[in-house]
Structure formats: structure tokens, C-alpha cells
């Protein structure tokens, strides 16, 4: 079959997926006008939820679709935050700095990619973590950061609290939507197909002419920028930058939990995982350490007994994956 013939055989989007997309668009419209009637607390919580969804979607892009299990994405959360602090200090208004800071983190990710992407699974995981630690130590040397004490983005206090809350909420909503749409477009395009081929069998992918390094690099850099944007948005709502918090490995644990529990390598799984994680945090968050210990145990149980997460449960019943990134071809020839 020629390429055109194959394309002609790709089935249109299943009805189930179309319904999900329409519901999602309706939900986004509701969320866009929600701040008009919701309390400040609800707006803050939702902002945090959007940020969690972004983290989950970006980590899934890395681990689920490109097979790059990073334990060091906090490097970009921290770096983006640090770049934002520095840019605001240099006189840039804080809101553009959210995005420019994240782009700066993306440049570092691009440089790092030449090095870390040459490593194998376990080595890659832990080396990315060590690099995050090394960057944290270096950032702590900056007198502006004052070591572990950290610093606050006081320029944000110039805005009225209501206005600031609303802006960050809307920015998070729009960024999240764009990010999910971007991931959708990326995965439906050439890069997505290549990445899935690499994840499933790297040697075979290489033998059919896929430049594995370039594909991995593209995804690594994009996912790192995405992670950094989520991080700077979080920083904008938290205001205080502390190296130990921003560069903390707990971010990786969160991302891993959300993606794993939702369903790694599925499009909708991480979003479900983020919702579940958010709900758990709301209900059990007051238990502090015991809650986090529970998160760890749930992660182990999912990894061992339900490695495909909630979406896996759905698939086990013989139903089609909602919003699958695999293209379905019609049977007739």
C-alpha cells in the first residue's frame, strides 16, 4: 500500500472520543467563567489542579510515550522559577517572566539532552535526579536566593490580590488547554508515532529509519518546557522561591503517581490521575507524612498489580481506549 492508501484507511475519530471532546470543551467554557461566581479558595484550588494536570500530562509525554523515565523534572521546575526570579529582579514584569523563565529552562533542557539521552533507563532516571541536585546547589550560591532561605517575588504584590488570583487562574487554564492540545497534536503527528515506535522497540524503530535521538530530544525539551511553565505558574501563586521546595524530588513522586495511577502511555489517564491525586490530597492531605506514605504504597500496588492504571481497568473489560493515540485502520482493503 502506498502512503496515500494507508491514510485513506485511517478510521475517523470514534463516536466515544467525539463525545469526550465535546464534554471537555463545555467544561472548559464553564471553567473560564467560573471565577465570576466561585470563592477565592475554589479558584486557588482549581489553579493548583490545572498545574497538577500539566505536570502529569508532560511527564506522561516523557515516560509514557517516549519511554524516558525521568526522576529529575524538578530541575526545570526549579530552573524556570529561578529564571523567573532573576528576570523579575532585572525589571521584567512578572507575568511575561512566567513564560520567559520557562523558556530559559527549556534551553538548559536542550543542552542537557545531548548528555542524558545517551543513557539507559535506570541510569537516565537517576542521572537526571543528580543533575537536578547539582543545579539546586548551584542556584543556592546566588546571593539573591540566600541559600536555603529563598526569596519572594515581591513585584507580584504590586497587583491587587483578586486581580492576581484571577490572572494566574486564567493563565493556568489557557496554558493547560494549550498544553493538552499541543500534546494531542504532537502525538497524532509524525513525532508521536515515532516516539511510540521507539518506546516499544528502539532497535526496530532505528532499523526503519527513525532517528531515535532527534525524536527523544524533541519530546524531552518540549516536556521540560511544559513542566517549567507549570512550575513558574505554581511559583507565581506561591510567590516564595525556595530551592529545596522548587527542586524537591517530591514533584517527581507526584508526577509519577498521577501518571501511573491514571494509566501510563494513555492520553486521558494522567488527567484522571491528576484529578484523583488532587482529591486524595484534599481528603487526606491533613494526615501529612502518613498521607504521603500512603501515596507511596498505592504507587507500589499500582505498579505491581495494575500497571496500566485506571484506564487499564477500563481496557481490561475489552473496551476501546478513550482518546487513543494509536491510529486505527479499517479492516477492508
Amino acid at each position, binding site marked *: 500500500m502506498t502512503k496515500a492508501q494507508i491514510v485513506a484507511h485511517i478510521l475517523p475519530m470514534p463516536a466515544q472520543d467525539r463525545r469526550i471532546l465535546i464534554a471537555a470543551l463545555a467544561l472548559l467554557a464553564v471553567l473560564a467563567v467560573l471565577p465570576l461566581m466561585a470563592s477565592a479558595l475554589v479558584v486557588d484550588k482549581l489553579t493548583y489542579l490545572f498545574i497538577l494536570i500539566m505536570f502529569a500530562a508532560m511527564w506522561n509525554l516523557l515516560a509514557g510515550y517516549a519511554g524516558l*523515565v525521568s526522576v529529575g523534572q524538578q530541575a526545570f521546575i526549579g530552573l524556570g522559577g529561578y529564571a523567573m526570579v532573576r528576570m523579575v529582579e532585572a525589571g521584567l514584569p512578572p507575568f511575561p517572566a512566567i513564560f520567559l523563565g520557562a523558556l530559559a529552562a527549556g534551553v538548559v533542557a536542550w543542552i542537557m539532552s545531548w548528555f542524558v539521552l545517551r543513557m539507559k533507563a535506570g541510569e537516565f532516571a537517576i542521572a537526571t535526579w543528580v543533575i537536578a541536585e547539582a543545579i539546586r546547589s548551584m542556584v543556592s550560591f546566588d546571593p539573591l536566593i540566600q541559600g536555603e532561605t529563598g526569596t519572594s517575588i515581591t513585584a507580584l504584590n504590586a497587583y491587587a490580590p483578586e486581580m492576581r488570583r484571577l490572572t494566574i487562574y486564567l493563565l493556568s487554564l489557557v496554558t493547560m488547554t494549550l498544553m493538552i492540545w499541543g500534546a494531542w497534536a504532537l502525538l497524532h503527528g509524525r513525532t508521536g508515532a515515532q516516539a511510540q515506535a521507539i518506546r516499544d522497540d528502539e532497535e526496530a524503530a532505528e532499523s526503519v529509519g527513525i532517528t531515535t535521538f532527534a525524536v527523544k530530544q524533541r519530546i524531552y525539551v518540549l516536556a521540560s518546557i511544559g513542566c517549567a511553565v507549570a512550575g513558574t505558574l505554581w511559583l507565581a501563586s506561591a510567590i516564595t522561591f525556595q530551592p529545596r521546595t522548587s527542586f524537591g*524530588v517530591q514533584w517527581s513522586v507526584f508526577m*509519577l503517581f498521577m501518571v501511573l495511577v491514571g494509566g501510563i502511555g494513555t492520553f486521558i489517564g494522567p488527567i484522571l490521575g491528576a484529578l484523583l491525586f488532587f482529591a486524595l490530597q484534599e481528603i487526606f492531605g491533613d494526615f501529612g*507524612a502518613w498521607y*504521603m506514605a500512603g*501515596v507511596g504504597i*498505592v504507587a*507500589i500496588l499500582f505498579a505491581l498489580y495494575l500497571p496500566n492504571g485506571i484506564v487499564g481497568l477500563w481496557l481490561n473489560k475489552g473496551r476501546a481506549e478513550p482518546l487513543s493515540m494509536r491510529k486505527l485502520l479499517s479492516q477492508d482493503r
Partner: protein
Amino acid sequence: MLEAIVQGVLLGGYYAVLAAGLSLMFGVVRFINLAHGDMAVLGAMIALWFVQGAGLHVAIAIALTLPLMGALGWLMQRMIFERALRGGFLIPILTTIGLGAALQNGMFGLFGSDTKSLGAYIGNLSWASWEIPGGIFIGQLPGYMFLTAILVLGAVHVLLTRTAFGRAVRATATDSEAAALCGVDARRVHRGAAAIAVALAGLAGIFLAMRAQVTPFAGPMLLIFAFEAVVIGGIGSLRGTLIGGIALGLAQSLGAMISPQFSLLAGHCVFLAVLAYRLMSGAAAGRGGWRATITALVFHKSMLRGKS
């Protein structure tokens, strides 16, 4: 300067013990236990509980803790890791990260966040020192710890090279199918290796509790040190691990001369440099050596894309 070197070498013994378990698991079971540092902290916490809670002598506490940790390693291999290893490369990473989070926060819940130390229970050992010619003082505790480290690593080396169990371990690490054809039960070997690895982690944790303080959240940092020592020294040999531990100890101790914050960063930098050298020389070999690589880097970056 000379004192910093001596201190760095002695510190290296502790790092080598910490790293040996990680290296053993990686070499034999082919898997990186990301909760290895947390196991070390757990060992320290158990020993501390024996001393503070049960009022036992430190030596007895250590004698009880190590077999307990070994048993725990055996159990974890049997209950968790064996199953995780069947799931490809992703599941072990996810499982051990979850295990780390559970251990850290569980220990925090049980023992609280106060930093704890065995230093108060070992008499004047924590501050006594020997003077060697040249006016250099060597702390007795670091000295004894270094000696213990050498003895323990030596004992593990003898176990691996001179006993039937050791032969089975090495055979499984080289070719587990061929080992099975020789009657070796890989699961038994893996459980044994995990027991040794976790007991070694426990010993390293006890060392840490003697020379400094432990907190429930110290594990990730210890894992990083262990991994750095393993990579610097080269995976799969105990001698390499000892050299890697000493190199890391030296880097940190010399780095601390510049500024206290620089200590850890110096260790990270040595690690990254060694890793970069390994990766680049591997990649360079594929492209006709260093000179060709540099030429390619400078003149035609596109040549670097693709095959590594």
C-alpha cells in the same frame, strides 16, 4: 590540605559501603533500587531504636540490626522486586520510587522529624583522635569506620569469589540462563544478593548515625552519593566501588575547603565529569575517536545526530 585528603579518603570507606549494595543489586539483579538510601536510613533508625528505645548497647544494637536488615532485603526481593522485575524497565523504577516515598514518610510518622544521632552513645570515640607525624590529626571514629568498611568489603569479596554461593551469584550475573542450566536457582541468588545489599545499606546508615545525624528524609541524598560512587568507580567490581567511594569522599572533602556549600556540588561535578567522559568516549569511539568527534562538533554539528 593534607588533612582534608586524609578525611576524604576515610569518608570514602563509608561511601563505598553505601555504594556496594547498590552496585551488587545492579550487577546481579540488574536493577537500580531507588529506595536504597531510604534503606540505609531505615537501618540507622532501627539501630537508634534499639539503643534509645530498648536501651541496648551500641554493639548489640548493630549486631541485631544487620541481620534484621538482611532479612528485610530478602523479603523485599521476594515480595516486591521479583514481581516488579517482570514488568520491564519502567515498573522497577516506579515501584522503588513509591517504596522510597512510603519509607521516608512512614519513618517520619513513626520517629518524627528530629535529627537523631548515635554519637552520644559511643563515648569519647566521636571526638577522640590520633596524631600522626606531620601534625595531622585523624579522628578515631572515621579511622575505625574506614577499617570496618575495608574489612566488610573484603569479606563480601571473599564471599563472592571463594564460595559456592559467590560462584552462583557471579554466574547468574554473567548469564542467568546458563546459570540455570548449571542448576542455579536465580531467584534464590537474587534474594541472597538483596539480603547482602540491604544489610550493607543498613551498615552505611549506622555509620552515618555515628558520624553525623540522620533524618527520615536523608535517603534520597544517600542514594545519590551511592550512585555517584558506583558510577565513578565503574559498575560491577567491589574494588571499583571502593575507589569510587574514596574519589567521592576526596571531592567532597576538598570541595568543603572552598566553602561548606561547595562540598556536595564538588561531588556532583566529579560524577558528572566521569559520566560525561564515559558517554563521550563511548560515542567518540563510534565516530572514529576523539579528534573526529571534536571536528564534527566544531564544524558539522549535524554529524552528531542519529547514531550514538
